[in-house]
C-alpha cells in the first residue's frame, strides 16, 4: 500500500482486494529504512549496533572481562570510554553488551511471535468457545505487571540471559495473540477469502495463502516496537541480577556496577544508558516508519477509532489506544 489509489482507499475495508505486499517490494523496503531523516538515522544506529554485535571480538579493543587497567579512568585514546570499577575497558564491555542486548531482544520477540501468532490465528479463525477460552487466558496474563511476571517466571527457570528473555517473551505473547486475532477477524470476512473457500481450497491453504499474509502486517509493526521494549526489559532484569550473570557484560549489569560507584565515578552511568536509549529510539523510529509504509491510513483511522471508542465504548477491558502499547517493558 505504498501508492494510494484514490478509488480503493474510499471503499470499505472488506471490498478492497488483498493488500499489495509493500514489504516485498524494493521500494517499500527503501521507504521503510531510508524514507526520512528519522528512519535513516535509526537504520544507521541499528546497522552499527548489529556490526558491533556480530563482529564484537574485532571491534572491542580489549577483552570485556580483562581487569588489566587502572579503575575509574575517564575517556582517553587508550580507553575511549574509560575504565570501570575493576579496571575493565568500558568500550569493550559496551560492544559485548550490545551483543547480549540484540540476542536478548531477538529471543524475546521470536518467542512472543511463536506463541502469539498461532494462538491469535486459532482464536480468530475458529471463534466460539476456543476463542473465548484463549482470549480469557490472554487477558489474565495481561493483568500481571509485565516485569513482575517475568521475574516470577525467571525465578522458576533460573536466572540468565536466555531464561529471563524466554520469560519476557511469554509476557509479550498475549498482546501479539490479541492483535493477530483482531486482524484475522477482519481478514476472514473479506471477499477474496470467500472466493478462495468457494473455489474449493482446503482451510489450511486458505489460512496459509490468504489469511496469514493479510493479517500479519500490524503484528510485524508491533514486533518492531517490542524489540525496543525487550532491550529495556533485558537491561532491567540484568540490573537486578536476574538476567545476564556476572561477569558477562550487559548494559544492565554495567549500570548495576556503575551505580554502586556513582559517587566516585558518575561518568560510568552514561555509556550503557545512552546505548540503551539509542537502540530503543531506533527500534521505535523503524516501527513508526514501517507503519507509515504498510498502512498510510493508520493515523487517520486511529484517530477515528479513538473517537468512536470515546462515544460507544462498552464494558470490555480496554485495549491499548494508539496500537503502540505493549504491556510494559521497563
Amino acid at each position: 500500500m505504498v501508492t494510494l489509489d484514490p478509488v480503493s482507499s474510499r471503499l470499505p475495508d472488506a471490498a478492497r482486494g488483498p493488500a499489495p505486499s509493500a514489504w516485498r517490494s524494493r521500494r517499500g523496503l527503501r521507504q521503510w529504512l531510508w524514507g526520512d531523516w528519522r528512519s535513516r538515522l535509526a537504520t544507521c544506529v541499528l546497522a552499527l549496533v548489529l556490526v558491533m554485535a556480530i563482529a564484537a571480538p574485532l571491534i572491542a579493543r580489549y577483552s570485556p572481562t580483562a581487569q588489566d587497567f587502572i579503575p575509574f579512568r575517564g575517556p582517553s585514546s587508550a580507553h575511549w570510554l574509560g575504565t570501570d570499577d575493576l579496571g575493565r575497558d568500558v568500550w569493550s564491555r559496551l560492544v559485548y553488551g550490545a551483543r547480549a542486548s540484540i540476542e536478548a531482544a531477538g529471543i524475546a520477540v521470536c518467542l512472543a511471535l511463536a506463541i502469539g501468532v498461532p494462538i491469535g490465528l486459532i482464536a480468530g479463525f475458529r471463534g466460539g468457545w476456543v476463542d473465548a477460552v484463549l482470549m480469557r487466558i490472554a487477558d489474565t496474563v495481561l493483568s500481571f505487571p509485565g516485569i513482575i511476571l517475568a521475574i516470577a517466571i525467571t525465578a522458576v527457570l533460573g536466572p540468565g540471559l536466555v531464561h529471563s528473555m524466554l520469560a519476557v517473551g511469554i509476557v509479550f505473547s498475549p498482546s501479539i495473540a490479541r492483535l493477530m486475532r483482531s486482524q484475522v477477524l477482519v481478514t476472514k470476512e473479506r471477499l477474496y477469502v470467500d472466493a478462495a473457500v468457494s473455489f474449493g481450497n482446503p482451510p489450511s491453504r486458505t489460512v496459509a495463502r490468504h489469511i496469514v499474509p493479510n493479517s500479519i502486517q500490524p503484528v510485524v509493526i508491533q514486533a518492531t516496537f517490542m524489540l525496543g521494549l525487550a532491550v529495556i526489559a533485558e537491561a532491567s532484569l540484568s540490573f537486578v541480577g536476574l538476567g545476564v550473570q556476572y561477569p558477562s557484560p550487559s548494559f544492565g549489569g554495567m549500570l548495576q556496577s556503575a551505580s554502586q560507584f556513582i559517587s566516585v565515578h558518575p561518568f560510568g552511568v552514561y555509556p550503557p544508558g545512552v546505548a540503551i536509549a539509542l537502540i530503543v529510539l531506533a527500534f521505535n523510529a523503524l516501527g513508526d516508519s514501517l507503519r507509515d509504509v504498510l498502512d498510510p491510513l493508520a493515523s487517520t483511522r486511529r484517530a477515528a477509532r479513538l473517537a468512536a471508542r470515546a462515544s460507544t465504548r462498552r464494558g470490555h477491558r480496554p485495549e491499548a489506544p494508539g496500537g503502540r502499547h505493549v504491556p510494559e517493558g521497563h
Partner: protein
Amino acid sequence: MRRLLLERAVWLVPTLLLATFGVFWLIHLAPGDPAITLAGENATARQIAAIRHELGLDQPFLLQYWHWLTHAWRGNLGTSLNTREGVAGAIGHALPVTLQLVLGGLLLAAVLGTIAGIVSARRAGTSTDAAVSTLASAGAAIPSFWLGLVLISMFALGTHWFPATGSVALTSNPGQALRHLVLPSIALGVSGAAEIARQLRAVLIDILGSDHIRTLRAKGLSERRIVWLHALKGAAVPLMTIVGLQVSRFLGAAVVVEAVFGISGIGSLVVGAAQNHDYPVVEGVVVVMALIVIVVNFAVDVSYRIFDPRIR
C-alpha cells in the same frame, strides 16, 4: 447502574481465579523441593517427609491449590522459606512504600503528560509541537531506572538538593517523605508522561477538529475554556484508559527504580525472593500485584460511566 457495576464486579472472580491458578501452577513447576530447603542441610529423610506432610506437599496438586486459595481468602499467603515469616505480613510492610512511589509517579505523569499533550495539540504542526514530540519519544525510550541514576548523580550527589536513597513513610513525616519521593517519582513518571502526551495529542487534535468544538468557537467561547473544559472532557475516557494502563507499567517499573534508590518495597522483596528461590513470597507478590491491576482496570471501567453517561 448499580446492577451493571455488580455484574462487572462478578466478572472479576473468574479472572482472579484464573490468575491465582496460573501463578500457583507456575510456582509448582519450579525445580527443587521447599521441604528440603526448609529442613536444612543435615536433615534425615524422615524429617523431610514430616515437613512435606506439614506443608501439604504430599497432597494432589489441585487439593494443594484449594488449600492455598482458601488460606489466601483469609489473608494467609503462606510462610517465607527464608525468613519463616508470614508472606502477607512482608507484603503488607513493603506495599505502602511501593504504592507511595507509584502514586507519586502517576501524579507526575498525569499532570506533565496532560499539559504536554494539550500544548502540542493546540500548536499541532508548529515547532513547539515538534519539540514536545521529540521530548516525548526520548522520554519513552529512556529506561526509568537509568533516568533514576542520572537524577541521583545530578541532584543528590552533585547538588545535594534531594536525598539519594531510602524512603520515609508519608504518615510519619510528610515533609521528609516528599523530599525522598521527588527523584524516584520523576524517574518513574517521565516515560508515562511521554506516553500520555503522545496519545492525548492525537485524541485532542481529533476532538478540536470536531463539529461541536466548531460550534463552541462560533459561539465566541475563549480558546482556553474550549480546550480545558470541553475538549478535555471529551478526551476523559481515552485519558483514563491510558492512565489506567500506566498503573500496571509503573508497578513493574517500580521494582527496578526501587533497586536504584535503595527503597525496600515490593521490588526488593520479589527480587530477593526470586534470587533465593523463596517461592511462596514470589507467589504472594505476583498475586497481590495482579489483584491491584484487576481492581484498577475495574475502577477505570467504572470511571467511563461517570465521564460519559452514553456508555452503558
